[in-house]
């Protein structure tokens, strides 16, 4: 059924045991099983966590390594990753100057190779009952840690995602953010996951629980150097009336593999904005699963991929409208140069009773080279009859009329093209209300698109 020659993900440093194969279990998972047993034996943590690891591992054992025969992985080429002898995470020293700053006060959590780095992290005063810190489970958790840990792996969705399952089994640490009822956290939470390469497989975790009417602003960044597999899972729980602005920047090295998953569950009247910017990695894929689990829940999913060389950037999105009066907006864009590829697969699912749902989806791709490729796969499953659902998709090159218009005003050809590309992409960033972050991302985007400094200066709002 699957390759038996080489185990692409099983860390080579971990002992392998001969295990009697069952007929149904893929060969691959047996090599993982021994690694998993060793991993578990070295951890001391609450039973609930151990049980959730075992469940995740069994899920992975059942799913196995994805193949391109599977619809969900048809456009994701894992063949290079499969040839890599992945190593378990290890401690590493990272200079603080290599890490980004928000240019405003923030609760800062830094993880190196998936492990909390307290020396690089910084927490300001927190409101009563709020917890922000390492998720690393220890035998004597505080009540708020215990409450939050109870939420781990409770979200439905992504059950078919092998890397999310691997994460569930092998995660070592992560960010835990818990806000009690009615807490408005004005200072943003800044979480940085840094991978140091060395072909390590890192499975960072993020667990955020906003109790009813709580509000938070979260910035999650993935950075790194060298080649590694980063397979993070973020779980976001929003109670009734909670508000979340969640920003994710993926700027890992050009050799990195990023296979992440985000699960979001929103209660009644809750509101979420998710802004996802993907710039790095040779392969970067994020699977996003949203459950609108109460009336009048609303979400904005705003994604941008900028790719060049042989980079591949994929977004797989599923929004499940489970209650009436929900609204969702998916806006996904890509700018692709050279032989870069992007995939957007977006599903809107409206359950039979979710009347008055308003669900929109738009996928727009700008190709800067004839070898670049974008796939858009919008899907609708509408089981209610009184809904507004719409989707649109466009892929194309720069408009020569627009280029000529700019040139006819004195702007040079290269600069005109850069300006048009920038305008297309920056439109996505304009939706970000966290000003210091938006300004930083705007500069990052301008640098990435090699805009002349002067032009950038003028474009700044």
């Amino acid at each position, binding site marked *: 059924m699957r390759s038996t020659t080489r185990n692409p993900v099983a860390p080579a440093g971990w002992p392998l045991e001969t295990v009697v194969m069952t007929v149904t279990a893929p060969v691959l998972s047996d090599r993982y099983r021994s690694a998993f047993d060793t991993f578990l034996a070295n951890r001391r943590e609450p039973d609930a966590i151990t049980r959730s690891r075992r469940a995740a591992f069994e899920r992975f054992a059942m799913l196995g390594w994805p193949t391109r025969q599977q619809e969900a992985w048809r456009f994701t080429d894992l063949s290079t990753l499969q040839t890599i002898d992945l190593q378990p995470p290890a401690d590493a020293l990272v200079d603080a100057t290599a890490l980004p700053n928000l240019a405003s006060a923030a609760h800062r959590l830094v993880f190196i190779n998936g492990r909390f780095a307290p020396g690089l992290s910084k927490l300001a005063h927190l409101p009563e009952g709020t917890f922000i810190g390492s998720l690393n489970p220890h035998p004597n958790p505080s009540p708020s840690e215990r409450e939050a840990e109870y939420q781990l792996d409770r979200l439905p969705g992504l059950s078919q995602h092998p890397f999310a399952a691997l994460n569930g089994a092998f995660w070592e640490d992560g960010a835990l953010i818990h806000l009690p009822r009615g807490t408005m956290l004005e200072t943003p939470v800044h979480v940085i996951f840094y991978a140091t390469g060395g072909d390590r497989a890192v499975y960072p975790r993020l667990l955020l629980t906003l109790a009813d009417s709580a509000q938070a602003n979260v910035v999650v960044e993935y950075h790194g150097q060298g080649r590694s597999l980063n397979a993070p899972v973020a779980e976001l729980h929003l109670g009734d009336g909670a508000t979340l602005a969640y920003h994710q920047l993926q700027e890992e090295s050009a050799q990195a593999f990023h296979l992440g998953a985000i699960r979001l569950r929103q209660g009644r009247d809750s509101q979420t904005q998710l802004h996802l910017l993907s710039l790095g990695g040779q392969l970067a894929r994020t699977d996003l699963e949203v459950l609108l689990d109460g009336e009048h829940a609303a979400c904005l999913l705003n994604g941008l991929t900028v790719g060049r060389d042989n980079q591949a950037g994929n977004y797989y999105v599923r929004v499940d409208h489970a209650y009436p009066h929900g609204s969702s907006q998916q806006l996904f864009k890509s700018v692709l140069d050279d032989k870069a590829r992007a995939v957007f697969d977006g599903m809107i699912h409206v359950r039979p009773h979710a009347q008055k749902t308003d669900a929109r989806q738009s996928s727009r791709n700008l190709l800067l080279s004839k070898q670049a490729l974008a796939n858009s796969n919008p899907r609708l499953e509408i089981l209610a009859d009184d809904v507004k659902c719409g989707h649109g998709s466009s892929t194309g090159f720069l*408009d020569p009329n627009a280029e*000529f*218009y*700019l*040139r*006819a005003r004195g702007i040079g*050809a290269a600069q005109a093209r850069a*300006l048009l590309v920038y305008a297309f992409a920056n*439109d996505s960033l*304009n939706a970000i209300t966290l000003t210091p972050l938006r300004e930083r991302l705007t500069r990052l985007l301008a640098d990435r698109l090699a805009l002349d400094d002067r032009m950038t200066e003028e474009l700044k709002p």
Partner: protein
Amino acid sequence: MLEIRNLHATVEGREILNGIDLTIRPGEVHAIMGPNGSGKSTLANVIAGRDGYVVTEGEIRFDGKNLLEMAPETRACEGLFLAFQYPVEIPGVANLYFLKAAVNAVRKYRNEPPVDAMDFWELIHERMELVQMADSMLKRSVNEGFSGGEKKRNEVFQMTVLQPRFAVLDETDSGLDIDALKVVADGVNALRGPERGFLVITHYQRLLDYIVPDYVHVLVNGRIVRSGDKSLALELEEQGYALYNEEPGRARRVAA
């Protein structure tokens, strides 16, 4: 300042301009009139340097320099301006920043420092008043969601801010009501002076009531068949182009 000699041009292999001769001196306003498809817009696009318009014979000199050898942006930096017949929408680029980028591109070409922010702001507001443009237009993306009239007004606004030495207005009056027409004319008249030249391309005489030309040329089938003063425009208004015994719209049909 602009000398066009024996200009022949093709679009997609079809000959649209069949030997145009035209000399415009500083301070002069020339109007080009003609039926649909006579080559008016082709002439404007050839002057501005749009791709796909191939000059097969003849030349255009701008202040003695060979215009046809210049890239479109160089022509603009040399002081040439085209008010587009169909202004392009550019989502994501705010009008204000687009204009500032254009102004600074020209200044850079002339080895001048970037425009002072306060000076620029003052100029912008003065010109906005002139063309009766709302403040909100500055923050909006270039031409995005603008009505036809707003787009044309924006062209004239850009012209008054960039202050080119020579401007071509390509049917800037088409689709405008009389108030908008006056605004366009005010913009042009505000710039008129001994150093500047204008080429006003129009289908109707109406605009020329407000922008009074020094010369009027009739373009038919890619050739200037008659030239005269402003009375020629009135004559055309009364008698139409049938007088020139040419099949109207030939060039456009051929080009299509």
